[in-house]
């Protein structure tokens, strides 16, 4: 089993993601520079957070149109897992891998703090180790993280259970107050059509070790590993 973490110019959570995968979760992980492409088959690809291309034009817009993304699209089409975190989620949305987009926060300011999330669907390769409706705590760190999609897309996401995480109160209630950036229906984690692609704004790699205050994010990576093992 082997994971890839793809680095763009301006990625800055690449080493954190690779550290958690290899040292905390014990899975072989390669850092891949986007210009060199994937170079081989991987079981899973992580697109890490950061500021690819300085967030020029729109966060993720330019990285989404690089050749390595075509490789990642093919990887996803063949059933490979892809996890886009923060800037990786913005890139995923810009590339059309997930519906909708992540845009400027309702209050146009960079927010960096822990938030509560309700796990909305545990029947995914990314969340099988959580309990349905479990509330977890992960940090967010973004200025362009407000999830936006039209009514039709939102109803399809709900119908097809492609909403994975919503901002919530500590007790799991979904309220306006719990929504830090104005995301539609508090959504901050969405699956692509095939279910093997997750785009999420919060940072699980920053909450995977007790010393960092929360280990709630680790189960995302462990769920992915378990899924890959089960698929053999």
């Amino acid at each position, binding site marked *: 089993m082997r994971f890839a973490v793809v680095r763009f110019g301006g990625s800055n959570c690449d080493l954190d993601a690779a550290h958690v995968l290899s040292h905390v979760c014990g899975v072989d992980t390669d850092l891949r520079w986007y210009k060199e492409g994937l170079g081989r088959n991987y079981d899973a690809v992580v697109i890490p957070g950061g500021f690819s291309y300085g967030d020029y*034009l*729109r966060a993720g817009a330019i990285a989404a*149109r690089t050749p390595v993304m075509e490789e990642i699209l093919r990887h996803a089409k063949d059933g490979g897992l892809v996890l886009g975190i923060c800037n990786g989620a913005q890139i995923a*949305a810009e590339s059309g891998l997930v519906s909708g987009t992540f845009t*400027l926060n*309702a209050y146009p300011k960079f927010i960096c703090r822990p938030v509560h999330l309700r796990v909305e669907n545990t029947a995914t390769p990314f969340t099988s180790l959580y309990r349905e409706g479990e509330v977890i705590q992960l940090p967010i760190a973004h200025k362009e993280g407000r999830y936006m999609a039209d009514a039709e897309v939102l109803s399809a996401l709900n119908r097809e259970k492609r909403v994975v995480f919503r901002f919530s109160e500590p007790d799991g209630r979904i309220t306006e107050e719990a929504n830090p950036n*104005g995301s539609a229906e508090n959504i901050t984690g969405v699956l692509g059509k095939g279910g093997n692609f997750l785009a999420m704004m919060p940072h699980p790699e920053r909450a995977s070790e007790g010393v960092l205050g929360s280990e709630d994010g680790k189960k995302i990576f462990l769920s992915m590993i378990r899924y890959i093992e089960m698929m053999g």
Partner: protein
Amino acid sequence: MDFDVEVRITLKPGILDPEARAIQHALADLGFPTRRLSTARIFSLSMEAQDRAGAEEKARQMCERLLANPVIHRYEVEVRE
């Protein structure tokens, strides 16, 4: 032929524009209350094309492929020779 093209990207009606809202507040604080304020992004470019229609078509493709995000944006293209 060379063409100058101006591409103007705006948010679709009804899409929240937090930047505009912040600017509107700041203007009000300076004593300039406004009923409406919206932001736009303008790209000025020069390029070669067969003719005017070709230049416009190219600029539209640029919008579809990169400059605009169809989820939230609309765009207008103006070609000048």
